[in-house]
């Protein structure tokens, strides 16, 4: 009897299920799966917008490792990623831990932190162009401590650090919010027990807060690393990859090869390398932080 009833219910469910998911399924096939397979194929061709793709095997991949432009971009992406991720997370933790404590002042400050977090990156970048300009805020603040004005965005030594500082600032607001929410969700009894045991602030932080916060930290780390590895906007808006390719991060180099220069096969191959690197780095992070569970 119940089998019959289930059968009777199963068919309309199947119809509705297919109907409700069909648009999304078609969309993901057309705009994600097919392009992904096409990108793999293109990476083995010499496709250049005009003309037809010819299969050239691994030539694009071989070319990459002899291309100073690619090697430079890959190295800059590594530097950029490490130097944005580490300070951002450390600084965000240093702010989030005290900020997550209850209190009226903290509640107000938490609301204020949302302002930088919600600033669009495009708008942020334009503001930092002015901050880094010759007569801008960066040089004014340096002048207060007696340091000569710098050409932040046009010096090949400084430009990458100018980008890093902006991105650290931009991501910090976001991560403070995420970490604060994570910290507020931690069980209060553990802290009461620690206080009764006379645990100091530093011990409480390293022995209790950090381990309990591991899941949130892993999330922040993963989105932070992935965000930095595929960051295109800061390099495009602040420096245009320059001066002398000093800020030409890999996503910028891929874009420049694919669109202004129309080397689509080669750009697709570099995109695949970036993708594989991102997957490996994510897997390492999960492995590393999951490993600490036992």
């Amino acid at each position, binding site marked *: 009897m119940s089998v019959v009833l289930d059968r009777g219910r199963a068919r309309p469910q199947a119809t509705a*299920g297919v109907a409700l998911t069909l648009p999304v399924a078609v969309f993901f096939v057309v705009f994600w799966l097919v392009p*992904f397979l096409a990108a793999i194929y*293109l990476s083995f061709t010499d496709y250049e917008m005009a003309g037809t793709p010819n299969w050239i095997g691994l030539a694009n991949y071989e070319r990459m490792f002899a291309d100073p432009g690619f090697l430079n971009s890959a190295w800059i992406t590594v530097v950029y990623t490490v130097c944005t991720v580490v300070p951002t997370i450390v600084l965000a933790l240093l702010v989030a831990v005290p900020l997550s404590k209850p209190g009226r002042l903290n509640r107000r400050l938490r609301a*204020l*932190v949302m*302002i930088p977090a919600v600033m669009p990156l495009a*708008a942020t970048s334009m503001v930092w162009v002015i901050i880094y300009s010759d007569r801008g805020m960066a040089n004014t603040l340096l002048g207060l401590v007696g340091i000569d004005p710098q050409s932040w965005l046009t010096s090949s030594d400084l430009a990458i650090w100018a980008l890093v500082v902006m991105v650290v600032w931009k991501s910090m607001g976001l991560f403070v919010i995420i970490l604060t929410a994570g910290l507020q969700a931690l069980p209060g009894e553990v802290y009461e027990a620690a206080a009764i045991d006379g645990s100091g602030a530093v011990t409480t932080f390293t022995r209790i807060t950090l381990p309990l916060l591991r*899941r*949130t930290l892993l999330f922040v780390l993963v989105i932070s690393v992935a965000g930095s590895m595929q960051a295109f906007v800061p390099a495009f808006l602040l420096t245009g990859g320059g001066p002398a390719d000093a800020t030409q991060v*890999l996503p910028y180099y891929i874009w420049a090869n694919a669109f202004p220069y129309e080397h689509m096969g080669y750009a697709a191959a570099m995109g695949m390398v970036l993708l594989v690197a991102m997957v490996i780095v994510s897997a390492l992070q999960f492995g590393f932080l999951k490993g600490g569970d036992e």
Partner: protein
Amino acid sequence: MRAGTILRTVWLIVAVGFMLLPVYAMLVVASAPDDTDLRGLVFNGFHLPENIGLLFGEGNLPTYLRNSLILCVGTGILDVIFSAAAGYAMAQLSFPGRRVLFALVIGTLALTPMVLVIPVFLIVKELGWVNTFQGMMVPGMISAFGVFLVRQFALGIPKELLLAARVDGAGEFRIFARIAVPLLKPALITLFLVHFLAQWDNLLWPLIVANEQELWPLPVGLANFQSEVGFNYHLTTTAALVTAVPPFILMVALQRYYVAGLTFGGLKR
């Protein structure tokens, strides 16, 4: 202990002050009468309304703003509708292909746009959609994030509720529209907000697919704004400020949903 509390408060005020400093600099420079003072430290008169009036009186900023609004509201609504339908079905209905679809959605979460933009551009070109609104809108319309968010949320809908409706003779589509959608409302608001904010800041795709200035949304417009206003720093800053206002308003109105969206991956699962 008391000293510790004071120290902590001072540190927080200094740190949050530094985090707000660039925002303050934006306000100062955007309110300047000209480019003579770009330090961004002290207000040199308050000419923000005039500057905004200037940008809206002539030039392309109103066009960029309109395009961004069409883009973000349009794709936001579509994302909410399609993700709600698919996310609910994947969580609560049994139908053929459910597992495959879920794998497809999760798989795309790992893909970087840098891999996809080239072939997607070729597809859009094949469709004749280069330099059109649909070319800008359709490829970024639905996100794996949205489908996944709704699915996770929809798993929490009690089965008994749906079963009771079925026993009462309600059709599956009616159950979705009348029972599921109202219950999913918080997730759908979060999704709209996250989608809007991400799309509002999307520079790469419109840059690739829209060459005509008439179609540019704000990020592409801003990228070219310096030359448009004759390298006027204070007017460029005013335009950046205008760009930051809609996300700011949404954030103030929907703060709870914003935090929920940000922390979705960190707290759940």
